[in-house]
C-alpha cells in the first residue's frame, strides 16, 4: 500500500515537473533487482542509472535491490511463478538463466542490434564461456574472475609464500587458516569446485578438495563472508572469491591481496528481465545503460572488467580504476589475452546435483575443525 502511495506520489510529482502526460512516460518510475551481485556494485549501478534516467528520459526512477545469493534468487523467481516482485535477475551462473528461460520465467531482451553485436558471443579456450544467450534471453554485463584472496601479513607470519596457484592453498602450514563457502550455498564456490574437478578429473579432484577441507578453518554461511574474514585477518586465505568482492575490501581500507590462478572461472554476470515484470521498459533501459561506456565505467572502477572489447579499464593515475588494475594483477581487458578455461557449462549443469550431494557426504558430514 505504501509502495503504491509512494509510486503515485512520485508519478504525480514527475507529471507536475515535466508537464508531460503520465501515459507518455518513456519508462516506468520504479525498478527492482534481485541479485547476488553485492550491494557495492548493484547500489552503484542503480544510482548511476537513476541519474541517467533523469537526464535521458526525464523520469525519476525509484530503484531498489533485493540482495539474495544466486540459489535463493533463483528459487524466489521460481516461487513467484511469473508474478515477480522484481524486474531483473542479475548475476550467477548462466546455466540458471537458461533453466529460467526454459520455464518461461524470462522475457526476451530485445536490445538494439548494435548494442547486442558489440558483445562477442564467447571467450575462453579450450572451453567457451558464453557472454550472451543465443536466444536473446540474457546478456553478460561485466567479466570477473573467481580467485584467491589472502592477508599478506598473516601469510608472512605463518611463514608461507604468497599463494599464486590453487595448490598453494594445500600447504600444511595453512592448516585451519583457509576460509571457503560451501558449494551448496554459493555459485562462485560451486563454479570453482567445478574448475578443480575439470582440471584434475573426478577422483583426483575430490581428493584435492578433501585436502582443501582439511586446511579449512571456517565454512562461511555466504560466499561474501570469505573476503570479509580474510580482510579482517581472522583467516589467512580464502577460496573462490569474486574479484570485485576482494576489491571492495581493499577500498574499505583493508590490506588484502587477490590472485586469479590459471583456469580461474570467469563469469559474465548475466542479466535478464523477468517475465511478468512490472517495469519492463525501465528494466530494458537499465540493461542498455549498463552496456554503454558510462555504465561499464561503474564496473571498471570497482574491480570488474568490461564485457566488450570496446572499452578497457583505464583511469588517471591514482584513480580507483587504476588501483583496480593493479589489484587484479595488471589486466585491463579479458579481450587482450588468451583466456584459459576448462569449465564446461554443459558438464557443470549436469554435474551440479551430484557435486552438491558428494560435498555433503564427503566433506560437510565428516569435516572437523582443525
Amino acid at each position, binding site marked *: *500500500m*505504501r*509502495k503504491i502511495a509512494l509510486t503515485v506520489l512520485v508519478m504525480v510529482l514527475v507529471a507536475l515537473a515535466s508537464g508531460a502526460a503520465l501515459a507518455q512516460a518513456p519508462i516506468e518510475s520504479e525498478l*527492482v533487482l534481485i541479485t547476488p551481485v*553485492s*550491494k*557495492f556494485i548493484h547500489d552503484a549501478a542503480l544510482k548511476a542509472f537513476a541519474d541517467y534516467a533523469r537526464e535521458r528520459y526525464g523520469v525519476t526512477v525509484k530503484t*531498489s*535491490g*533485493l*540482495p539474495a*545469493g544466486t*540459489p*535463493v534468487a*533463483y*528459487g*524466489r523467481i*521460481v*516461487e513467484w511463478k511469473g*508474478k515477480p*516482485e*522484481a524486474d531483473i535477475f542479475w548475476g550467477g551462473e548462466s546455466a540458471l538463466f537458461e533453466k529460467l528461460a526454459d520455464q518461461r520465467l524470462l522475457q526476451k531482451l530485445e536490445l538494439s542490434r548494435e548494442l547486442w553485436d558489440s558483445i562477442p558471443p564467447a571467450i575462453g579456450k579450450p572451453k567457451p564461456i558464453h557472454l550472451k544467450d543465443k536466444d536473446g534471453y540474457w546478456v553478460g554485463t561485466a567479466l570477473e574472475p573467481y580467485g584467491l584472496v589472502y*592477508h599478506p*601479513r*598473516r601469510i608472512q*607470519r*605463518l*611463514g608461507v609464500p604468497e599463494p599464486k596457484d590453487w595448490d598453494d592453498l594445500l600447504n600444511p602450514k595453512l592448516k*585451519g587458516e583457509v576460509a571457503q563457502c560451501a558449494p*551448496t*550455498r554459493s555459485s562462485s564456490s560451486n563454479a570453482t569446485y567445478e574448475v578443480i574437478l575439470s582440471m584434475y578429473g573426478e577422483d583426483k579432484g575430490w581428493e584435492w578438495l578433501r585436502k582443501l577441507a582439511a586446511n579449512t*578453518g*571456517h*565454512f*562461511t*554461511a*555466504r560466499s*561474501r*563472508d570469505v*573476503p*570479509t574474514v580474510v*580482510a*579482517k*585477518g*581472522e*583467516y589467512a586465505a580464502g577460496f573462490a572469491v569474486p574479484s570485485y*568482492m576482494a576489491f*571492495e*575490501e581493499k577500498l*574499505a*581500507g*583493508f*590490506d588484502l591481496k587477490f590472485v586469479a590462478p590459471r583456469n580461474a572461472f570467469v563469469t559474465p554476470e548475466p542479466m535478464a528481465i523477468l517475465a511478468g515484470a512490472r517495469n519492463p521498459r525501465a528494466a530494458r533501459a537499465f540493461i542498455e545503460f549498463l552496456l554503454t561506456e558510462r555504465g561499464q565505467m561503474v564496473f571498471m572502477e570497482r574491480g570488474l572488467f568490461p564485457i566488450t572489447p570496446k572499452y578497457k579499464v583505464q583511469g588517471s593515475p591514482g584513480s580507483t580504476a587504476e588501483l583496480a588494475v593493479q589489484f587484479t594483477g595488471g589486466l585491463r581487458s579479458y579481450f587482450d589475452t588468451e583466456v584459459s578455461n576448462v569449465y564446461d557449462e554443459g558438464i557443470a549443469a549436469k554435474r551440479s546435483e551430484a557435486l*552438491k550431494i558428494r560435498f*555433503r557426504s564427503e566433506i*560437510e*558430514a565428516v569435516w572437523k*575443525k582443525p
Partner: protein
Amino acid sequence: MTNTGGGLGAPPRTALPALGVAAIWLFLLVFLVYPLARIFYDAVTDEAGRLTVAHFVEFARDRFYQRSLVNSLLLGLGTVAATSALGFAIAFLLVRYEFVGRNLFSYLTLIPIISPPLVGVLGFTFIMGRAGTVNVLLMDWFDLVRPINFVYGVHGVLLVETLHLFPMITLNVVDALAKIDPALEEAAESVGARGWRKLRTITLPLTTPGYAAGALLVFIWTFSDFATPLVLGVHDLLAAQAYLNIVQFVDRRLFRMGIVISALMVVLALGFLIAARQYVAIKDYSSLAYSRVARRRLSGLRQALVVVFLSLVMLASFVPYLGVALASVGRGWSLTPFPVQYTLHYFERVIVETPKYILNSFLYSALAVAIGIAVGVPIAWLLARTRIPGRDTLDGLNTLILAIPGTAIGIAYVRAFHFDLPGLDRGLTSFWIILPLVLAIRRLPYTVRGSYASLLLVHRSLEEAAASVGATGVRSFRDVTLPLVWRGVLVGALFSFMTSLQEASAVLFLSLGGWETMTVGIFSFYIAGSANEAAALGVILILVAALSVVVINRVAGARMGGMFG
C-alpha cells in the same frame, strides 16, 4: 465519572463483547494457529500434496541431521546450565547482600540482554576472534604464530549465548527471591536449618517457578538462534540447518527438509513448554506483594570479592558492545588491537543516506504494539476477569508463542500467506503489513502478561462499584479499569516495542525490497560484507533499546522479571 443512566441506552450487554471475543479468536486462528498448522501440513506432505512421513524418516536416517539434533539439545542444556550458575549467583548477591555499587550492578545486569541479534556475536569476534583485540595483543606480546581460538566452534556459541542470556535467569530469580516471605526462612532457621540446608529446602523450591520460566526461555532462545552459530562457523545445529536449507531454494528436497526441521523445532519447543507448563503458564500474581528483604552487609574482603566477580562478568558481557562500538567507527581494522583510522562515514550511510531502516523499524514496531494492545489487553481482561469457555486454551496459545522459534514462525508465514488474496491478485506476503502482524503475534505475550498482572492488582470492587451505578462492562472498563492498569499495559507495550525492534528471525524471511528494518539492515549489510555499517546500525539499535530499558525501569520498578516468565 458521573454515570447518570449511562447503561440504559447501551446496546444489549452481550452483543458487543461477544463480537470482540470472536474477533480475538479469529485473529489468533488466522495469524497463529493457521500458519503453524500449515508448516506441519508441509512437513507431512510431498510436492504433489500426498501425505507422507518420508521427510521425517530421511531426517532420522541422515547422520548430519542426527548430529545437529544432538548438538542443539546439548547446546541448549549447556547454556541453561551455564546461565543458571551465573544467573543464580548474581541474583542471590543482588537480593540478599549489601555491597558497594549494588544498585549500579543490578542495573547493569539488564544490559547484556538488549544486544541485537547478529551484532552481539560480531562484536564478540572483533574482540575475541582469531584476529580480535585479545589475540592481536597475545601475538604481539608473546610472538604467537597461531591465534587462540576463543570463539569459532560450539564452545564459542556457548560463551556468547551465556553472556547474552544470563540476565533472563537473574531477572526471574531476583523477582522470585524478592517475593519470598522472610518469615519462612526465619522459621527454617529457628528449627536449625541454616546455610545449604535452608537454601535447598526453602529458598530453591520457592524460586523454582521463576527460574524454570527463565530457563525455558534461555533454552528456546539458544535452540532457535541461527545467527550466532553461523557467524562462528557452526552449521551442525537444527536452527542453522533450518535457516540454511530454507534460504537456498533451488534444491526442493533441502527446502522441504528446512520446513521439516522447523516443524520439528516447534514440536520440541512444545514438548519443553509442556514439561515446564506448571511454571510458565500465567502465574498467580495474587502473591505479587514484594517482601521487604533485609540485606546482609558483607565484610570488606568479601565485598571486594563480590565486586571483582560482578565486574568481571559485566566486563565479559560488555565485550560485544565494545567490539560493535569500535567497528562502527573504525576503518580497515585488521590485526591491530584497536582501529587505526576512525570515521563517521558508516553512521552517515545508515542514518542520512538510507534512513529507511530506522523509519521502517519504528513504524512496524509501533504498529505491532498497537495491534498487540488492541488484541492483548482484551485477552488479559478475559483471562483475569471472566470464566468464558476456552480461557485455558487462550492462556496456552499465549504461552506457546513464547516457545515458538522465530525462524519457524517466519517460514510458517511465508508458506501460509503466499496465496493470492481475493480481488488483489497478490498474497499477503506482498504487502508490508505482514511485518507488523508477525511482530504483533510474536510480542503478544508481553502485552498480555503486563496487562494481566496489573488487572489482578485492581480490586474487583472498583469495577463492581462502577457497575452498581449503571456502567456497562465496556464503560467501566474504559472509565475505571483502564486508568488503573495503564501502567502495566505501558510496560508491556514498551517491552514489546523494544523487543520488536530487535526481532530478526521471523522478519528476515518476510522482508522484501524497501521494507528493511534495522535488524534486516544489519543482516543485509553483514551479508554484503559491510560489517561496519552493520555495526553502526547495531549501535543505534542498542542505544534505542537502552533508552527503552531506562523508561521501562522507571515505569515498572524492579518488576521486569515478570515479563520474561
